[in-house]
């Protein structure tokens, strides 16, 4: 109630993030159309040349145009980030709600699987498997998604467990509404904002993970390129030939920043009470109860709870 009156504090951030992201998308996908060089062209007359009218971002040791390479890398990073986020958040929603709603055996088995995946050194597994799966970016997407959903799933499960005991869910159950329908109609809509925010966060995590893997040569591999590989190529020379490093690194930071801003703004806009949540919703639930109550009390001038519970 109070959040609405204050004019939604996260709105500015969400809009700024979204705007920045749209610009970056435009740059990544429309930029190559105006670039005189293709990403795989080689200019034999210019090796390691600094930014100029001919090569806007300069060239690499092998004479490739850094502008074209960087945009190509951006495209890859953006596509990978988005696909991973959709896949992993979807998986997290399914596993989390099923485990949380049904409880018992399904819960224990699924959460044990989550624990196991969390213990596995994910970077190592991805680094080992990604080349073995052929090194294509689709394989990379699958791998990243497979290792990104667990924390969200835990969070979704925690919230589902508390939603399951909420009276409107009980009411649906006691009306005779089936389990699947109850999850879809009464549980998922209340997780929507969480999932949306989490998907956005996962975009940035996936982009960072992808570039990290590619930086070590375990992710996107030459001749294909991503922001990570462009930055990796500048290794050791970054301080001497800053254009090799600066443009790719700057754009990478901008993408992640834009996504983070969007995610965090969304979090505040969609649910003021969720404004402060981190990776563990279970730990959160205990504390937020106080804050939320204090908030609603301030709005109406009275505490929200009157009368004692049975």
């Amino acid at each position: 109630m109070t959040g609405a009156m204050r004019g939604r504090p996260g709105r500015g951030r969400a809009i700024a993030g979204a705007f920045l992201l749209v610009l970056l998308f435009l740059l990544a996908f429309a930029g190559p159309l105006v670039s005189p060089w293709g990403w795989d062209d080689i200019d034999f007359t210019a090796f390691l040349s600094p930014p100029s009218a001919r090569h806007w971002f300069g060239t690499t040791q092998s004479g490739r145009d850094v502008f074209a390479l960087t945009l190509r890398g951006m495209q890859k990073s953006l596509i990978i980030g988005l696909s991973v986020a959709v896949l992993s958040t979807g998986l997290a929603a399914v596993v989390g709600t099923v485990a949380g709603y049904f409880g018992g055996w399904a819960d224990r088995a699924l959460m044990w699987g989550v624990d196991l995946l969390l213990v596995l050194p994910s970077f190592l597994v991805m680094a080992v498997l990604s080349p073995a799966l052929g090194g294509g970016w689709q394989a990379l997407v699958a791998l990243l998604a497979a290792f990104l959903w667990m924390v969200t799933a835990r969070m979704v499960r925690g919230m589902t467990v508390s939603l399951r005991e909420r009276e409107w869910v009980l009411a649906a159950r006691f009306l005779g509404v089936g389990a699947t329908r109850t999850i879809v109609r009464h549980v998922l809509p209340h997780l929507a904002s969480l999932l949306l925010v989490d998907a956005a966060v996962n975009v940035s995590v996936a982009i960072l993970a992808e570039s990290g893997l590619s930086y070590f040569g375990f992710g996107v591999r030459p001749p294909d390129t991503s922001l990570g590989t462009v930055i990796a190529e500048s290794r050791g020379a970054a301080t001497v030939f800053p254009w090799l490093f600066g443009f790719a690194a700057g754009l990478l930071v901008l993408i992640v920043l834009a996504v983070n801003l969007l995610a965090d703004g969304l979090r505040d806009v969609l649910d003021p009470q969720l404004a402060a949540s981190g990776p563990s919703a279970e730990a959160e639930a205990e504390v937020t109860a106080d804050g939320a109550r204090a908030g609603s009390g301030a709005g109406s001038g009275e505490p929200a709870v009157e009368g004692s519970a049975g």
Partner: protein
Amino acid sequence: MNPRGIGTNVLEVQDLAVTYRPDVRAVRGVSFSVGRGQVLGVVGESGSGKTAVALAVLGLLPDRTEVTGSVRLRGRELLGLSDGEMSRIRGKDLAMVFQDPLSSLTPVHAVGDQIAEAIRIHSGATRGAARARAVELLDLVGIPDAARRARAHPHEFSGGMRQRVMIAMAVANDPLAIVADEPTTALDVTLQAQVLDVLRTAGEAAGAAILMITHDLGMVAGFADRVLVMYAGRAVESGQVEDIYRRPRMPYTIGLLRSLPRLDDAGGRPVPIDGAPPQLNALPPGCPFAPRCPIAVGACWDDEPEMLPVGRPGHAAACLNTPATRDPDAVFPLTPTELLPPIGEDDAARARTSREAVLDVKDLHRFHVEQRNSFGRGKGLLRAVDGVSFDIRAGETLGLVGESGCGKTTVLMEILAMARPRNGGRIEILGEDSAGLDGAGRKALRRNVQVVFQDPFSSLDPRMRVAAILAEPLRTHAFPSEHIPDRVQELLKLVGLEPSHANRHPYGLSGGQRQRVAIARALALEPSLVLLDEPVAALDVSVQAGVIDLLEELRARLGLAYLFVAHDLAVVRRVADRIAVMHRGRIVEIGDVEHVYEDPAHPYTCALLDAVPIPDPVLERKRGRVRLPDVPPDAPRLETGCLFRQRCPRYLALSEASRALCDREDPVSRSIDGEPDRMVACHYALGVST
């Protein structure tokens, strides 16, 4: 001004106004004063601004809240002091007791340390001395074994004990004034009176003025010297407690008193006040109560009335039409619901046993493995429901009452699960054994058994519109979809809502309206049994009566049977035909409402009835009460004999030889005086020859 002739004004508040950002005017000019040793009760429903008054006096309102007017403590102006200056006054001269003792104590510090801290801040006492004083204070507020318990943490205390700790903390530095904000609201009825006693004693020991803020008119009646009634951020009536209760002059006060369900018969039937309090950010001109007022005149809509003296000295009311309130009974006439045909006439005429049973529960058990264990003892089995049997016949209402944690909600959940009871027992619903139900059978049975929960704020999916909420049961049970919109309108009308409400979300409705939607949803499929879990406990008093009226009316029109779970015995008396009293998972007494309330046989029933406050200062002060001791959570749990004997006043009065029976044998439920429907589980029940 003050009947006991003690002291001068300690706390004086003039023209206090509080505005929450950006434009919620929670308090709009309230003035009062409290003298040494005096108790002023500030009464109001949610949204009246009473809590904002309390926080403003202590300077604890959120940042950037606008506060104007004057708050003087012994002549010293408090408004405008810095946090540093206020912190030297707070806790020393001006103390506070908050509503919810669970969240008001820091979970990570031992209670003794938390009290000692209050002492050390102001006196500079050594750690040891402060601790010793904290133990003394715990002892003063009636915590047994105080030295040991001072080292325990808040989660190891029961609610009543926590509130005692809060009081100990408040009186630690002998304050001039204590502000108590709903100090008993979160507690069971048997504890409320005790905590009030503690507060009174501690306050008297400190000679403090007490500002008691509450929504509960019954509670203040026996506690306060003077009462101030608030509505929509303004004081609307104030005076000596006798004047307010016996000769109220403001229609709102009258309505509030009339809408209270009472244990005694005085005052007749509760009458609801129609409508809801106004929104504080968009107040129209005129008296804010005018839209709900049955005696409003034209001028009421022009200007907000001032508080003017009326009747005896010290009595003031903010009402233009005080001539019309000289006879309070004439202000709120009886509603036409009274004229309905008597409930279930043809059924009621027949003997109870000859009617069919819609619900039959036999020897129901439900155990929980205990999650939390105080003081690190081994884990145990919590017998939430321990052999409960009762039945409900067609068209009748059974009230299931007991304190929190007695297992009444668990019983309800076991019935609603419609499965074989996990820990034994048998549940028959409309003649069908729940153990034998398959998925389809269960779903078919759910049509006939519906539920209404306590809190209408959480029982309606906040993301759905009212129309979708009401359509859900219809869709689920294959109601022809072309008839659904009509049926939704029919249901809205049935529960007294407007057709336009169908398009609203729950947050666009008031508490009473939401509960009406919940009731409509329960009735959508025309069930024969409705389980009501504290259906009015979360509602304001003035709205409660309306919902209860609705429930009664529906029962008469549709021939429903109710299982009415509640903690408020006054409400149950009003709605139920029969009553079952639960204690620690058992039904200790069951029978006809009239009989049980007139001649309670079990000492627990007696104590529960005793604890219910009567909203009449004269009667309330005359009552002698039997106090039920609160059993600390770390007390050894009884496993043999009568489980009530730890708290039983009758047990205490018995001779050693007679006690042996209680110690040894678990009392079996037996019928009284040959009435098969009146049972009690006590070796020494009243009115039963042994």
